[in-house]
Every structure is written in C-alpha cells, then in structure tokens.
C-alpha cells in the first residue's frame, strides 16, 4: 500500500529522553537533612524506618485516591471510611484467630493476617462499589457538592462503623512473630515496620506493573491525561473509573489493616485522622500521579516521624509546610500528569 511519495520523513531527531528524576532525590535529601538534627545515628535509623513504614502505608491508602481524582476529577473526602472499615475488620478476623496470632510460628501468624487482609480488601471494595453508586455518581462534575457529600459520607460511615464495632478503641495486637525489633548495631528497627515497608514496596511494584504493562493500566494513565480522548477511542471511561474506585477502596482497606496494626489499636476516628495527610500527599505528588503519590507519602511519613521526635507540636504543620514548599517549586505537584 505504501509509496515513497507519501512518506513523511522523520525530522532529524528527538530531544534526548529526559525522564524527570529530580523529585526522586527529595526523599534521600529529606532523610539526610534530618540526620544532624536527630542527635544520634541510631535514633535517626529508627525514625527513618518508622517514617518509611508510615509512608508506605499512607501510599497504599492514597494511591487509589489520586487516581480517582485524576480520572474523573472526583475529590473524595470520605476515603478514610475504608481505612476505618479495614482496620475494624482486622480486629474481628484477628480476634477470632487469636490462637494463630499468638502462636510463635510465623506461618500461623501469616495464616491469620492474610484472611484479615482479604476480608478487609473485599469488604472495603464492595462498600466502595456501593459508595460510588450512592454518593459519588450523583455529583459527577460538581466539585462543591462532592466535597460536602463525601464529607457527609465520611461522617455517616463512621457512625455506621460505631454501630457495628462500638465507639471505643479496640486493641489490635501484633501477631507474635512481628513483635519486637531487629537490632542493627545500636539502632533498633521494629520488625513490623520492616514488614510494612515490604508490603508497601510490593503494592507499589504491582501498581507500577499494572500501570505500565497492561492495557487497563495504560488506559488509566491515558484517562488521567485526557479523558475525552479515551472516550473518543471508544472506551467507556466510567466503567474504568468504577473499577479504579473499587480497587482504591480495597487498597484503603488494606492500608487500614496495616495502620491499625502499626498503632496496635483501632478507633472509629482512625480514618478521618489521616484524611488530611492523604490530601497533602496527593497534592505533593501531583494529582493523578501514582509515582508522585509514592514519593509524597514517603516524604510525609518521614517528616511526621522526624518532627514528631524533634518538635511534636508542629508535626502536622511541618507536613503542610512541606506541601507549600513543593508547590512553590512545582505548582502542580511533583508530577503534573493531568492535562486540564
């Protein structure tokens, strides 16, 4: 079919591929900047691991939130409900399996934790489906109503959770094999924090693989960039959005299990308490960017732990300051992927 006359010559060359790596430096820079301030190396190691673990958990929770915004411009202030739900489900499942969680055998512990995670993700995903139908769908494209109604969803969800699990704090002890610390030289690093980092990295790896290697992932990224074009190609983006919403809710449920274990207890407010951090993280990262969300979450986790140690009163403020500094540098966040 081809003829030389029709050939459009490629112009000389492309600019060299310039992947934007600068934001990757922020996490080590932040960690190193804290080193002289924390006084001792061992304290710094402990705080850094605590920060990374917290950051990974926040990332797991926030990754869905940022995609939900990126795809449909939906700001969901009720995302925290899924955290609380996941955490309470963990108290129920792990409570019922206390024989296994108290066992010294790591395998038995995992045999209890996995069903807890599965239950949390499944129920959070199903509730997410209903939440999308009832709360989000009527207010597509209406930002002000979205803010109000999703905040309302948060409050109602929290009350419903109190009906089931009661208004009090419920303990969520770590399974036996995850208690205690590894000692590296003088630094103590809690075993559970290492486990949380491993789970966070695994979730990041899976998300990265899906978003870069599968067609659904490419569609999600394309949809974040230009929703109309994806629809013009014949894809029903609303279905994609519902899928992402469910997955994001399930991940928040997983994050709830991890966060509840991290704190070794669950209150009905556990979700609403991290809500602010979630929005700081996704704004730092650039709305719609999972990679940015990952970096933002690690920075926020580290910052929370360093300032929590150095100056506990300004811990939240320090993260807001961090966000402001990032936005001064890059007004749309670390990675601006949304094209509108």
């Amino acid at each position, binding site marked *: *079919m*081809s*003829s030389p*006359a*029709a*050939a*459009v*010559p*490629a*112009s000389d060359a*492309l*600019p060299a*591929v310039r992947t934007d790596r600068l934001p990757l430096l922020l996490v080590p820079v932040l960690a190193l900047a804290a080193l002289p301030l924390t006084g001792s190396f061992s304290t710094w190691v402990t705080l850094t691991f605590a920060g990374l673990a917290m950051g990974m958990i926040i990332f797991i929770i926030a990754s869905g939130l940022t995609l939900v915004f990126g795809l449909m411009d939906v700001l969901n202030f009720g995302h925290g409900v899924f955290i609380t739900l996941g955490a309470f489900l963990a108290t129920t499942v792990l409570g019922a399996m206390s024989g296994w969680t108290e066992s010294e055998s790591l395998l038995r512990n995992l045999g209890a934790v996995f069903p807890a995670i599965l239950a949390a993700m499944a129920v959070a995903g199903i509730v997410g489906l209903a939440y999308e139908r009832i709360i989000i769908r009527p207010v597509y494209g209406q930002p002000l109503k979205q803010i109000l109604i999703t905040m309302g969803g948060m409050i109602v969800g929290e009350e419903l959770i109190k009906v089931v699990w009661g208004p009090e704090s419920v303990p969520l002890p770590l399974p036996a094999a995850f208690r205690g610390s590894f000692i590296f030289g003088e630094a103590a690093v809690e075993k559970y924090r290492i486990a949380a980092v491993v789970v966070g990295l695994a979730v990041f790896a899976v998300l990265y693989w899906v978003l870069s290697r599968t*067609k659904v992932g*490419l*569609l999600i*990224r*394309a949809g974040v*960039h*230009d929703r*109309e*074009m*994806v*629809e*013009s*190609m*014949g*894809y*029903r*983006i609303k279905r994609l959005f519902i899928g992402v919403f469910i997955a994001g809710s399930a991940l928040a449920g997983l994050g709830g299990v991890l966060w509840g274990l991290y704190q070794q207890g669950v209150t009905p407010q556990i979700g609403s308490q991290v809500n602010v951090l979630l929005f700081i993280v996704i704004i730092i990262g650039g709305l719609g960017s999972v990679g940015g969300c990952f970096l933002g979450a690690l920075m926020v986790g580290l910052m929370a732990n360093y300032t929590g140690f150095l100056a506990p009163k300004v811990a939240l403020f320090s993260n807001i300051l961090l966000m402001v500094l990032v936005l001064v540098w890059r007004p749309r966040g670390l990675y601006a*992927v949304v*094209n509108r």
Partner: protein
Amino acid sequence: MTNPLLQLEGVHTHIGAYHILQGVDLQVAHGEMTVLLGRNGAGKTTTLRTIMGLWSPSRGSVRFEGQDVGARQTPDVARLGIAYVPENMGIFADLTVRENMILAARGARRIEDVDPKRLGWIFGLFPAMKKFWQHPAGLLSGGQKQMLAVARAIVEPRKLLLIDEPSKGLAPAIIQNMIAAFRELKQTDTTILLVEQNFNFARQLGDRVAVMDNGRVVHAGPMAALAEDEKLQQSLLGLSLGAHQ
C-alpha cells in the same frame, strides 16, 4: 447524494448559555473527503464534537448509516466505526508512540494484536512513527504529534474519520507531506470529514466542501466547482480565509 454516510439536519448545539450551532445541515458521502471550511469561531470544531457526542445537540438530528446517534455517549459513537482527531491532537504525552497506538486499536491487548500489514503501511506513511516507536509521545515535534494523531485514527479500519485542522501550526514542507499521506489514505476508500482553514491544503484533497459561518453551513458543493470559481471563493472565503491564500 442518495445515501450519505453521515447526515446532520438542523443541528443546534448549546455550550452552557451560548447557542453555538444554529441549524447545521451537512452531508458526508461514502468514500469521499468532505472539507469543512470557515473562519475562526464559525463552529467547525463544535460540529465535530457534536458528532462525537462530546456535546449533545439540543435540536436536530445526527445520522450515521441511517441511525440517529445524536443522543449516544461518546464511546458508543466511536464504536460505530468513527475515529476522531481533535484540534489539540489528544496525544497521550506520557505514553510511548507504541502505547498510544495500542490504545487506539480498541480490539488489541498488545501491539502484536494489531494487523502487521496495516502497521507496516502506517510506518510507510509516517516513518517517524517507526523511528520513535518507543519514545514518549510528549517528546515528538508538533508535526510528528499530528502524524501520530492521524496514525492512531487509522490503526484499525474505520468507516469515518473526523480530523480537525491537521495542518495547524505545521511548516509548509510538513504540510506537503501530510497532503501526500492523505492522498494515499483516500485511495483506501476511507470516508473523511476534514476541518481546514488552509484552502490550499483543502483544495488539493477535498472531493466536496462545506463552508460554515456563524454556526451554520452557508455553502456546500463539489470542491472542484469552488476551486475554479474565484468569485465564489471571494464571496465565501473572503469571510473565511482572509489570512490564508
């Protein structure tokens, strides 16, 4: 035109409070290239977006192969076999050229699922696509992005292509190449509705022409007639193409 592939009758489109299309009548015949001309703000883009279901018409009918598609959602319109190249090209900048093409081929899960002969033909039309296959599309030049936008639209056979100002912002040499590519595309019996402001470009390609002004089609007929009739050009395109040749 007994059986047009696409037929708009008395189409009105409102965008918010603005009444943009005010009764558009337009026919696109099977196998032909129809060029839509008109000055800035005449409503050309709005017409294409209305056909795609990106705006919904408030009155009138949009018929494709005889079915009324005016109330359909954009993905359902596309699934009828219509491809759209928007004015801003709609390139997915973070994705590679290859990934852009995979998404454009709705039925393909991987690039291997795309008909290799067709892909080879596209590489023949636009060698830059092959050269920059694995590069992020955001790094392409303006002309290359336009080529990618057209390449995406033809990665699978489509019944109708809607292409909005493919010559916009391109250097004359690139425009010539684009014309050559479109000529070849026309030989494959593809029906095209092309929005253009560049009359020189339009005249070399179009079979038929429709001229828009103020949200209406004010002239429709064979391109050859308009190309030969300088008086008509003056009266129609004087208002539409003052800035062009």
